[in-house]
Every structure is written in structure tokens, then in C-alpha cells.
């Protein structure tokens, strides 16, 4: 079982690299040789597609975890670029700072002005540090809350893109009340009288995710994950083996399908063939279609109904039995 994203993708990447090499030869080759190359390329591509179909056709919880975390997976700003027009990024919590791990702004989706928030990961090392690996600090959640309140004030829907391993657990986050910030994020989302839609596009990491995720509709990309704890953390606690992430991923049931089966999310958005990173544009189209459809459904409701709906939705979550006669 692959332990890392690169281990998991390597055979595919090798194949794709080979195909690219052959393709580079075509223009330089004589006509008959070129035709032969084209045929070869076609064969390899078929092979790759079969490989992809097998590999991505029945991903297990751990493989999805790897895909959800892939460093070439589309991030929040990629979706913003793909589906949002008239984008204006807004910054700052008006309290302490501007958190680069949490983006926020105003933009139109299908012509509808919305407030958009979301965690942002970085693709290269420098960007990753700049974005704090997508781990927002208190000021990130407080920026989001400022946006939620603005959305409520001006009747704008909220679209929340979730992609975070966790909220930032560092000493400075603790000192400024990361717990309070997450709790307040949920509280704010339960208060707004506008449609709210969360889309989990990669990692839905615990409190860091739900802090901007308590929405009227919660959608998950096919290969995203949503979990109360990172599988490695769970493995470390339960079995003292942080490397048993695959085992924990299975136990935690952190896939979109599991979340849907448990009634905790509303819809799974399909990714492009072979994962969102293989065709970000196509995946973004799917995201846009789903978001707009849910948005149009929600926009007919009045403020109270939207609030009541949200309350009822989360109030019903939980599985237990009532056994009035207590016996040990």
C-alpha cells in the first residue's frame, strides 16, 4: 500500500512522461515513422486510461486521502479563478492580522454576487509556508466571520471552500484563541439569514473544516476526505503507530461516500477522470454546476427558513439509541 502521494502516482507519472517523450519525437520524425509513433502513443494512452480506470475506479479511504492531499490538486483559488467573475479579494480580520491560509472575497458565480471564503494551500515550498500549509489561525476564522456577517448584512450567499489538514495548532494560535475562533465561526454560520454552501475540495480537516463548514448544503468532491482527526493522528493515539494511517483511514470512514451514507453531507461532486488534478477545468465545471444548482434551490427561501433549515440539518446529526432501563 502506497504511503505517499508520489509513491502512489509514480507508475502513472512514469507512463505519462513516456507518452510525452514519444509525442516530442513526432514533429521531428519522417512521415512513416511519425505514423508509427502516433500508433504507439495511442496504445500507451489506452494503457494509461485502463490503468487510471483501475487505479481510480475503486479508491480506498487511504488512497483517497493521498489524492485529497496531492500537491497538484486544484486549490481554492484555482476554483475561484475557474468559476468566479468580478473577483475582489478582501483581507484582514480588523483585529489582529490577515491570514494567508484563509482567503476571502466577493465575486459572482453564474452572475450571482457571493461572499467566498476558503482555506488556501500553497503549491511550492515558498507558497506552502506563505499559506501556512492551509492551516488557518484565529485571524483566518475571524476574517471569515467578518465575511459571513457582511454576507448576512447585504443578503449575499456564502460559498465556503474547505481544504485544510487542520486549524493551526501552534502556540501563537492557542494564545489568540483558535478554539474560540472556530466555535465562533460555526456560531456565525448558524446565525446568517442567507444561503450557505460548503464545498470540501481536498482535506476537510476536523475543527479547521467545520469552523467554516456549518452550511445549509455541504458538498464533497469525489476524492476529498472529511474527518474528525487526521488518520495518522488517530493511529498515533490508538495504536501508537503514526504510520498506520491507512488502517485509521479505514476505521474513520472519512470518504465522501461514507459521509453521504451517514447523512452528513448532501452530495458528492464527481471529479475528472483520474482525479481532479488530471483535469482541473472539468472538475471546476462540475463544482460550478453543483454549487449553482444548490444556490438556486436555496435562494427561494427566506431568512428564517434558511436558518431553521440549517439548525434542523445539524441538529439531526448523531447516531445513538435510547435505552431507558440502564443496566451495566
Amino acid at each position, binding site marked *: 500500500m502506497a504511503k505517499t502521494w508520489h509513491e502512489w502516482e509514480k507508475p502513472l507519472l512514469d507512463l505519462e512522461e513516456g507518452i510525452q517523450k514519444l509525442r516530442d519525437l513526432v514533429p521531428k520524425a519522417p512521415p512513416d515513422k511519425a505514423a508509427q509513433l502516433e500508433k504507439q502513443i495511442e496504445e500507451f494512452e489506452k494503457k494509461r486510461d485502463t490503468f487510471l480506470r483501475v487505479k481510480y475506479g475503486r479508491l480506498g479511504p487511504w488512497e483517497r486521502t493521498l489524492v485529497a492531499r496531492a500537491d497538484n490538486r486544484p486549490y481554492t483559488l484555482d476554483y475561484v479563478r475557474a468559476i468566479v467573475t468580478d473577483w475582489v479579494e478582501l483581507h484582514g480580520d480588523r483585529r489582529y492580522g490577515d491570514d494567508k491560509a484563509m482567503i476571502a472575497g466577493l465575486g459572482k458565480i453564474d452572475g450571482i454576487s457571493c461572499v467566498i471564503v476558503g482555506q488556501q494551500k500553497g503549491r511550492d515550498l515558498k507558497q506552502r509556508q506563505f499559506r501556512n500549509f492551509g492551516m488557518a489561525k484565529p485571524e483566518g476564522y475571524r476574517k471569515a466571520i467578518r465575511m459571513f456577517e457582511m454576507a448576512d448584512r447585504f443578503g449575499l450567499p456564502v460559498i465556503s471552500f474547505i481544504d485544510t489538514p487542520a*486549524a*493551526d*495548532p*501552534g*502556540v*501563537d*494560535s*492557542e*494564545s*489568540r*484563541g*483558535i*478554539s*474560540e475562533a*472556530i*466555535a*465562533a465561526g*460555526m*456560531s456565525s454560520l*448558524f*446565525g446568517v439569514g442567507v444561503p450557505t454552501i460548503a464545498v470540501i475540495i481536498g482535506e476537510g480537516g*476536523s*475543527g479547521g*473544516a*467545520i*469552523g467554516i*463548514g*456549518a452550511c445549509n448544503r455541504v458538498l464533497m468532491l469525489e476524492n476529498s476526505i*472529511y*474527518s*474528525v*482527526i487526521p488518520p495518522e493522528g*488517530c493511529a498515533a*493515539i*490508538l495504536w501508537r503507530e503514526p504510520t498506520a494511517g491507512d488502517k485509521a483511514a479505514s*476505521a*474513520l*470512514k*472519512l470518504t465522501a461516500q*461514507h*459521509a453521504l451514507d*451517514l447523512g*452528513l453531507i448532501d452530495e458528492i461532486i464527481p471529479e475528472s477522470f483520474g482525479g481532479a488534478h488530471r483535469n482541473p477545468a472539468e472538475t471546476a465545471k462540475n463544482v460550478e454546476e453543483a454549487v449553482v444548482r444548490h444556490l438556486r434551490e436555496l435562494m427561494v427561501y427566506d431568512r428564517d427558513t434558511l436558518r431553521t433549515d*440549517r*439548525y434542523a440539518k*445539524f*441538529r439531526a*446529526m*448523531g*447516531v*445513538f*439509541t*435510547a*435505552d*431507558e*432501563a*440502564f443496566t*451495566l
Partner: protein
Amino acid sequence: MQVKSDAFLRCSKCRKVLFSKEFERNLRVCGSCGHHHRISADERIRITFDEGTFQELDRGLRSCDPLEFPDYREKLEKGAKATGRHDSVIRGTAMIEGRPVSAAVADFAFMGGSMGSVAGEKIARTIELAIERRIPAVIFTATGGARMQEGLLSLMQMAKTAAACRKASDEGVPFVCVFTDPTMAGVLASYASLADVILAEPGALVGFAGARVSAQAGVGRVPDNFQTSEYNFEHGMIDAVVQRKDLRSTLARVVDHLSANL
């Protein structure tokens, strides 16, 4: 603390030997170093509410291991044996110096006081009952956080309890929370931090991430009192750090003020 004999025990903090009777009379606070030792939910109920007024509700709620998580059923059984309850949160109605409250108390001895579906449901019902009867909600936390054995269902309890708190807030119904040792992670990051007034016992562990994780993640120095009640007080997260012996009267006063117009 360690039991030395029936008559004596040793404080786990300062290592001093204490008279058991005095220790109990002291509400399990060390007479030497002042350390507030953990107490059971039943003991908490006894020392907090007016005698005989606590009426337990939902005692029968129990987890049904929805994820079929490894070893979860065994842990639930162990917790039940340790506490005589089905889950980590006990809830009911009670009086505090003559004022009615909707109350919940967590027991750390049940799976580290963790919050799964049952705890989340009981907290939500505690707040909802407060709203319905227009009386304050009073909750004592003692928890390591969300219960990972219920996976995403546990995470959703954060949202569920936060929703209830928001509703109480919108309806002008007060919620007072008392942080006891420990109050961590998913509970701190949901209903606990949404209380109108937060009191904490001295020296309780209060934080988001395990101290090891925080230290690894952080670039700065880890302060000596990191993730204690006192640290959180300094950083504006807690209204008052209150000695166990004074909690009852402080709570009564707060509840009295906040419900003046209910």
C-alpha cells in the same frame, strides 16, 4: 493522587501526604499546594447544586458504535463500569441557591470525557431545555475533545452543540460554562467557547491541540503555564479562574444577574 492507605493519600502534584478525610472535606483540593484534583460527575453535582435538586434526564442514551470502530464497544463498557453511566455527559435539571438551571456535567472517567453522538445530543438537549423553560444552562466540561471512534459524527457534534448555543444566544437565554481539568480540542472549539460567561478551575488543562503538537507547530517559546486556566485567562479566553470552594456561590451570582430579565 495515589492512595496510600484508607486514611492517607499522596498529592500527585506536590507529593505531600494528605489526610483522606481532610482532602475530601477540601473538595479534593490539596491543602498543601492547592492543586485541584479531578472529581467525578456525581461528586460535582453534589457539591454544586442544591441538595437533592438534581434530576437526571436521558440517562438511557447510549452509543451504538455506528462506525464499528475497532475496540470501541469495549471502551464504552469500560467507561460504563468506571462511572455507572452510558456516556461521558450527565444532564438534568437542578437548582443552584434556589435558582433553576438546565445542567450538564462531564465525567472524564468515561473515555476521557470525549464527545460523541450521545454527549453532543445531551449538550444540545441541555441548551434546548434552557431555551424552552427560559432558565440558564450551566455546563461543566471535563474532556479530551471529540470522540474519534465515531469519526465524522463526532465532528458534527461540534456543529450541533454550537447551533444550540447560537439559538440560546439569539433567544436571550444565558449559558455559563465551567472548565475543569481538562477541557480540550473539539469541545473547547465548540460549545464550551460559546458560553456567555466562562469560569475555570485553577490549573485545569485548557487548549486546542496536544501540547506536543503545539510546540512542534509553533515557532515561538512555549510558556510555562501554556494551556492552563491561568494562561487562557491571561489571553482573554476565560472570565474568571475560581477556586472550587467558591464556584457554587460565583455561579449563583452570575446566574442570578444573567437571568434577571428572563
